[in-house]
């Protein structure tokens, strides 16, 4: 794994648990899933079925390979309507 500088944004339940709506991290993570595992460990975020991830404002997947400078958005299960 290589160290990347990433902006991580949190929403709803994840934002409340992380205690911030975004942070910049220099972190070893190749995929969005690896990044989530690390920030979940740091902040005590729950692993929720139906959580989603977006990269640079486009829906993505936890298998997506991240690039240096990406903004990664973690969405807990949505509940609009």
């Amino acid at each position, binding site marked *: 794994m290589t160290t990347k500088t990433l902006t991580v944004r949190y*929403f*709803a*339940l994840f934002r409340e648990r992380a205690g911030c709506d975004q942070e910049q991290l220099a972190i070893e993570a190749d995929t969005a899933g690896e990044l989530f595992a690390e920030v979940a460990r740091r902040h005590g975020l729950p692993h929720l079925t*139906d959580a989603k991830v977006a990269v640079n404002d486009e829906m993505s997947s936890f298998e997506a390979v991240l690039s240096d400078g990406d903004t990664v958005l973690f*969405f807990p*299960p*949505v*509940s*609009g*309507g």
Partner: protein
Amino acid sequence: MFTVSHQALDLEALKAELPDPGAGACVIFEGWIRDTNYDKPVTALDYEVYEEMALKEGSRVMAEAAEKFDILAARCAHVAGHLEIGDCAVWVGVTSAHRDAAFLACRYIIDEIKKRLPIWKKEFFANGDTGWVNCEHGSQSASPAAPVPRGTSSSTK
């Protein structure tokens, strides 16, 4: 068109966007804030919307509805912020020459909006508890075709 509103929806103004001389049907869905969820009394809801992506994805849903169904116009608006019992959280209006297309498109739009848009609701319960829906106390039925038996619970239908 899909929009996000930071104030109460003006339902008459939304409906006024729809008239068309070729329309023989207008189907409207309003999602209201209900006073109970999972058998617990609810006093209010907060909607958090990530607008940048909600607007993009909402516009995609509207375009898909126009592509899939023989409709004349479709309009949807969702509220962001604090709502109380009886308030309208989401409004969908669809017109078509004949009713079938309007019913189907309206159903498609509300179902996709609920499934795909980055919108979250936090419930405030009468006993002082709060909770994020679908995150902290089970998930509601997401099956569009399944009949909803009486007593099944979700914050808006």
